[in-house]
């Protein structure tokens, strides 16, 4: 019997990936990484890793006599399969390769998942992206007025969702009802599930909503160019994973703005108005009442899906 150290290392890495994915699911931390809609995919990845681990364990020990040709199926062809089968001698290059693969395991197990904060909002372009999104949207809106299905999917694919996955799925009728509801209600309540939908509607046609009351929560984000009494009440919208988070938010006006620190979560009531920011017309919330709240359990927003068929 011969013990293959590298095969054992590989087996352990496969197992560790599986354990890490399962751990994130059971602790509920997974929602800090990906949209819950896609949890099933990463669960199946965890199961696959476990299966591969079981297969890999059989390669740790080989019987000496035929250990040389045992593992490479390809030896029947000209051997150009070019894969590292984990049997060739260990060297620095390989050490680096293993270190790289182990790296995410180490950080995944040891470092806590962090909810994205205002510094990322800034790196994502902050208000520049907000204003940018809007102007592009207006451009797209012209050829197909009030038809959200025709919009450029890159900019707001969130509304053009074809999936029939269980969560946050609306039929076209339900979706239209939602918009009708928004148009008619005197107070707009920005709940998490419809936040991005309402947000898009309000951005598209600010005039329609001017003077309406609005209730929402978000974290404080500030940027140069804002007045002393202004802040951006922001949320992150996660389409798939945290990496594709995009910031959405309203410029808000309240006298105590300068005393509020970035990343503070607040719940506000206010009135919608318009303002001019760097030459673009943007909605602004004149805050009437507000209070500090703790960071919600689900800090991120997920786009709703609309069934088209």
């Amino acid at each position, binding site marked *: 019997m011969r013990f293959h150290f590298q095969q*054992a290392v590989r*087996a*352990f890495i*496969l197992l*560790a990936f599986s*354990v890490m*994915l399962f*751990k994130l699911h059971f602790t509920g931390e997974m929602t800090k*990484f*990906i949209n819950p809609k896609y949890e099933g995919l*990463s669960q199946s*990845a965890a199961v*696959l890793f476990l299966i*591969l681990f079981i297969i*890999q*364990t059989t390669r*740790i*020990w080989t019987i000496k006599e035929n250990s040389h040709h045992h*593992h490479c*199926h*390809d030896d*029947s*062809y000209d051997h150009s399969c*070019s*894969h*590292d089968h*984990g049997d060739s001698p260990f060297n620095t290059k390989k050490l680096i390769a293993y270190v*790289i*693969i182990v790296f*995410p395991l180490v950080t*995944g*197990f040891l*470092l*806590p998942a*962090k909810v994205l904060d205002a*510094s*990322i909002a*800034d*790196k994502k*372009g902050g208000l520049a*992206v907000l204003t940018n*999104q809007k102007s592009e949207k207006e451009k797209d809106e012209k050829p197909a007025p009030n038809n959200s299905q025709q919009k*450029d*999917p*890159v*900019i707001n*694919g*969130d509304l*053009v*969702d*074809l*999936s029939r996955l269980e969560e946050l799925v609306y039929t076209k009728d339900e979706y239209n009802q939602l918009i009708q509801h928004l148009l008619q209600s005197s107070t707009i309540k920005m709940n998490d599930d419809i936040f991005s939908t309402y947000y898009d509607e309000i951005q598209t046609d600010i005039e329609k909503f001017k003077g309406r009351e609005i209730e929402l929560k978000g974290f404080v984000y500030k940027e140069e160019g804002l007045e002393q009494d202004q802040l951006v009440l922001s949320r992150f919208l996660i*389409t*798939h*994973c*945290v*990496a*594709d988070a*995009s910031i959405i938010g309203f410029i808000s006006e309240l006298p105590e703005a300068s005393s509020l620190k970035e990343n503070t979560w607040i719940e506000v009531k206010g009135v919608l108005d318009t303002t001019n920011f760097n030459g673009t017309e943007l909605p602004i919330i004149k805050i009437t009442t507000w209070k500090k709240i703790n960071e919600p359990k689900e800090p991120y927003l997920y*786009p709703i899906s609309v069934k088209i068929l």
Partner: protein
Amino acid sequence: MYRVVRNNIIEFTGIMLIVLALLLLSFSTSFKLSFDIPPSLLNLNTIFLSILIEALPFVLIGVLIAGVIQIFVTEEHIQRWIPKNKVLAIIMSCIIGALFPACECGIVPIVRRLVGKGVPIHAAIGFMLTGPLINPIVIASTYMAFGNDFKIAGLRMGLGFFVALMVALFVSVIFKGKQLKSPIHTSTSQTRSKKESLSTRFWSMLTHSIDEFFDMGKYLVMGAFLAAFVQTYLPAKALLEAGSGTVSSLSVMMGLAYVLSLCSEADAFIGASFSNIFPTSAILGFLIFGPMMDLKNTLMMLSVFRMKFVIGVLALIISIIFMTIMLVQSFI
């Protein structure tokens, strides 16, 4: 006798590894760092892991399919179908490549074997370009990455196919011969695998998938980390300025695709993360160029083909993608 010992040892080792992993798990849950980590590093780590977690299922499916192909499809099957006519051969090879769900990590050795066995170089290149770009997993992941919309996925496949055809046509005009660095020795024993039982072949398919995972795992991790690093530390404003025009934004994204060397099964998610910074045309450049040729792939090709040939193909790919996207960008 050996068998009994062997079986027990395997189970024992497996259990030991599981125990070790569980120890690690319990250690990590009670683990508290003695020093504070700057929040930006935690942000970096979160984004890095989220890219990985999102990409891993697709990578695993990819290596499993690659394993199936490596074991169950022989090059002879493909070679038999390639016609003598150059143009027909190119169209054929591009279609075969599109049907052949390879990953760019595994396609270079396959192409080398194909060329060694007498497949003309232009057909091999067509196959190499469409193989990683057009396949069900890439379509599925692109479709999902861009908010379950088929437009980007469709454009990626359609334009990519066109670019592959054009590159292969130019290659057939410019380059002759095999262009291999050194002739490879084709061994004579090709019958053994047919004698192997189905279960042996299935088993070797799975082990092959594991090897493939470790082969490309490091590139995936590096790519995810670089992408996360860019997101955490590079202000989007700098990128917005660097890539404000169509030409410059396309150049930035194509450069990024080349340097990141992402696996085609996972790059859609990373491309999508730039979609609120860059125009669609630049994102398409990223999505089409990445799977065809990148830093990692170039290195692999240099170990197989002549330097002049590799650089020639790279220049062809870049210029044809660039021109194609500039031509169609007003329509998308």
